[in-house]
């Protein structure tokens, strides 16, 4: 049902569906409709105009009833087009699945054969097949199906290659399944949507091709009517009696248009990327809908977040990804944000510069003050000037953030020139200097490398160089070392630490690794279910965690040098942020939870001189809060 609803969202597809339903229904009902025999000739009545007596659409050059011929012809054309599409899809998909699944030599031989088939001009190949088999509707069907097989084979092969290397296929092998069984039960069900999509977009084309062959006299043979042969027979009377061509021509137009519109709709509704709304273009800045009064700046931080709230509105659900976060970072300081996936740490970071995709993201409250100026709701131009210039980001996966088709030098130059008017040669010199500053050896040569020519560690250095390109004051690093090996991670962390000391950078460092936080960050904020549950100097918190979540989470993490042992685990799962419980979000997993924990919101309150905590029953007495 959700498929039909998605389809009907596309008005044109809905119109196509309705038109096609009417056409198909009429075609199915043709035998029982009160129509004259389409093949009975009556030369006395030839070329009657439409809307004349006993012939609604007139008659053709042999006096046959056009309405009747149209209905029977449509019936035949639809059947042949559909049969050709099914045949082409079945054979093409079978070829594609086999080539894609087995790969290697099998793939090579099959796909080169398919390429050869594609090498022939399309219509020439169809003509050659009909010429070899002899004219006739069935042979035309075979020809149209045959020339469309390569299209399906190539499409399906591509999809199958992706699926054949999925882990569940390996798992099926280990479960003792044969290749044939794996193809049928594991691969094909995952390929079917693609086949349906490909069919829905080509069936109209195939009806057109069958009509083309019939038009040339190679398809249906007289007196049998199909849309193409009707057009062909009417050709000689095109000028004198245009209605004989217009009637079948209009029908072809209606059918092909309706099928193509419907096909596009089917494709959009089935495509998982479109389903999730990923292809709808996000706005340049996150939508802002603040109802509460905007907080005023306070403190001496260069960047400070006050009660920041970001939500995702998906259909009728509201996900409170960030539920009121207060943070502040000073020049030269490194602030760590630690939390598990779904805790809202990345959304917090992206909200700062309005980079959360909208829709579905909405900032619903709070403020982000950069040097006292509120960035939430600031005009796009203001944000654009700050992004990458004053506040820069480093992301997790440098392979995904660097453009694969440009050299790293070109991308660095672009980053510089989008904020500063400099000549390209100056910018290039600056790019080389930047690569040197992130300790890339042989920077003069490396500047002309493409991202794929570099190792993961090198690419992340380029990512850092790009963040440094315009001497920013704040760097927001979102898990910059998670994808890297430990030896490379150690180098990147040391580099970031040196840079902030040399340049007085403020760094917001997002991670899930306590070891990394301990080594790099001055202060740390622990997030859980969209809120900060504990914040303070890193040493103090790691030595004596006060919030039960921090303490339990640290106990879960094995640490090198402690040997083999049983690990502490936190029972249960974090709450889903569209159904947050009243009170403390951690209460359901906390052994100390009392009824007071669940009765109402718990504030993030001061705990000792430098720490804050969102808990009414801390793990340690407040006297021990100083490190």
């Amino acid at each position, binding site marked *: 049902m959700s498929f039909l609803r998605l389809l009907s969202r596309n008005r044109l597809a809905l119109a196509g569906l309705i038109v096609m339903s009417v056409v198909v229904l009429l075609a199915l009902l043709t035998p029982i409709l009160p129509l004259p025999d389409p093949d009975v000739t009556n030369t006395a009545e030839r070329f009657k105009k439409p809307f004349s007596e006993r012939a609604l659409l007139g008659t053709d050059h042999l006096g046959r009833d056009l309405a009747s011929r149209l209905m029977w012809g449509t019936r035949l054309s639809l059947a042949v087009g559909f049969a050709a599409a099914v045949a082409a899809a079945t054979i093409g998909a079978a070829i594609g699945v086999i080539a894609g699944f087995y790969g290697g030599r099998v793939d090579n031989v099959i796909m080169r054969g398919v390429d050869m088939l594609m090498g022939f001009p399309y219509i020439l190949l169809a003509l050659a097949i009909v010429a070899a088999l002899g004219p006739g509707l069935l042979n035309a069907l075979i020809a149209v199906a045959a020339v469309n097989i390569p299209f399906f084979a190539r499409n399906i092969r591509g999809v199958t290659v992706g699926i054949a290397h999925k882990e569940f296929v390996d798992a099926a092998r*280990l479960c003792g399944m044969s290749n044939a069984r794996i193809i049928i039960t594991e691969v094909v069900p995952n390929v079917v949507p693609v086949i349906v999509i490909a069919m829905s977009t080509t069936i109209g084309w195939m009806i057109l091709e069958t009509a083309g062959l019939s038009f040339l006299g190679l398809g249906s043979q007289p007196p049998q009517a199909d849309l193409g042969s009707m057009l062909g027979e009417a050709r000689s009377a095109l000028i004198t009696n245009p209605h004989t061509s217009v009637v079948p021509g209009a029908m072809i137009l209606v059918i092909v248009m309706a099928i193509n519109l419907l096909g596009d709709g089917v494709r959009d509704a089935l495509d998982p990327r479109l389903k999730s709304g990923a292809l709808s273009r996000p706005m340049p800045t996150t939508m802002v809908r603040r109802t509460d009064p905007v907080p005023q700046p306070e403190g001496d931080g260069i960047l400070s977040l006050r009660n920041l709230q970001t939500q995702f509105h998906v259909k009728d659900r509201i996900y409170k990804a960030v539920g009121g976060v207060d943070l502040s970072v000073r020049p030269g300081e490194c602030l760590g944000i630690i939390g598990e996936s779904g805790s809202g740490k990345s959304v917090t970071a992206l909200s700062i510069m309005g980079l959360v995709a909208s829709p579905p993201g909405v900032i619903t409250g709070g403020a982000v003050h950069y040097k006292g100026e509120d960035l939430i709701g600031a005009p796009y131009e203001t944000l654009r000037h700050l992004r990458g210039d004053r506040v820069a980001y480093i992301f997790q996966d440098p392979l995904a953030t660097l453009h694969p088709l440009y050299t790293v030098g070109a991308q660095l130059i672009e980053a510089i020139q989008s904020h500063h008017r400099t000549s390209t040669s100056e910018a290039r010199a600056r790019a080389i200097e930047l690569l040197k500053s992130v300790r890339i050896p042989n920077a003069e040569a490396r500047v002309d490398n493409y991202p794929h020519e570099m190792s993961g560690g090198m690419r992340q250095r380029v990512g850092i160089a790009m963040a440094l390109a315009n001497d920013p004051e704040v760097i927001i690093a979102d898990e910059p070392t998670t994808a890297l090996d430990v030896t490379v991670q150690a180098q990147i962390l040391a580099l970031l630490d040196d840079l902030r000391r040399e340049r007085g950078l403020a760094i917001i460092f997002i991670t899930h690794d306590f*070891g990394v936080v301990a080594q790099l960050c001055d202060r740390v904020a622990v997030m859980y279910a969209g809120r900060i549950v504990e914040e303070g100097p890193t040493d103090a918190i790691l030595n004596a965690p006060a919030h039960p979540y921090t303490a339990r989470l640290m106990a*879960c993490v094995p640490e090198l040098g402690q040997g083999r042992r049983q690990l502490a685990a936190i029972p249960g799962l974090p709450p889903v942020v569209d159904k947050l419980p009243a009170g403390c979000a951690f209460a359901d997993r906390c052994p100390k939870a009392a009824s007071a924990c669940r009765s109402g919101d718990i504030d993030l309150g001061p705990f000792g001189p430098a720490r804050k905590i969102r808990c009414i029953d801390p793990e340690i007495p407040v006297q021990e809060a100083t490190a």
Partner: protein
Amino acid sequence: MSAALKLTDLSKTFPVGKRLFGAPKAGVKAVQPLSLTVEQGETLGIVGESGCGKSTLARMLVGLLPPTTGQIEIDGAPLDNADPATFGQKIQYVFQDPISSLNPRKTIRQIMDAPLRHLHGMDAKARTARIAEIFAAVNLREEFLDRYPHEFSGGQAQRIGIARALAADARILILDEPVSALDVSVQAQVLNLLADLKQKFGLTYIFISHDLAVVEAVSDRVAVLYFGSVVEVGPADQVFAAPRHPYTRLLADSAPVVGRALAAPEAKETELPDPLNPPEGCAFRARCPRATEVCAGAVPSLEVQSDSVSAACFHPLADTD
């Protein structure tokens, strides 16, 4: 104790520059000939960085890749043909990405049925009983059986993956980064479950990971892989605490540890050697602070150093280093 799994000179070379006919242009040695023994009921940890050949090794162990040379013995019987169906009854695999290892278009029941039906030929009634037994062992509710994989969190999906591996009734499990896709709080749940299952069913584990701390916490012995070779192997509590091979030392020093000051243990750019053009002698010598001329001349072999720790190094570290 007897050997559950014995590898002799197992190696894998991938052809590069395949041609339609004739021999390939070159070969990449993903795994150099290596020999390892895993005792019954033991957990052998395998650590190494990306590109060191640990996944290739794992896939050979379950028959998903035919080895180029060498042989695999399970319980003393050699397994020659790389047929996952034969392997499947003796040795099973738990995948890194719990979600993508489950077919999105099958229910959990269909997924669980597969090994029981194809490896053991059980009828429907026996399968239902066996699934119930396994689900109880991995703390999953039976109502999950009629749902689809996308309805589960990573931790639950990984339990299902473990349940499937158990269903094959194999005595040896290859755990390929089984917790690296999971959050730390869930990671601990899964690691503890694995420890319980091992006790309960008398399993033998090969635990592959890039996370040294996790490997140390779960393993009896640890093998360190570098560039397709074992460079050090020994008891888990000694390998990282007192490394003999300079590479193990580098790994241990690079791991971020609470309470240790930040310092890059290596000043040089760390690049793995080019597999198409492997260096002569020790593969690590370009990065090694102790490298001498000897290291360039020959490949060091794995030799017992002390306390049952073996390392492949001409200049192994001593306790005092």
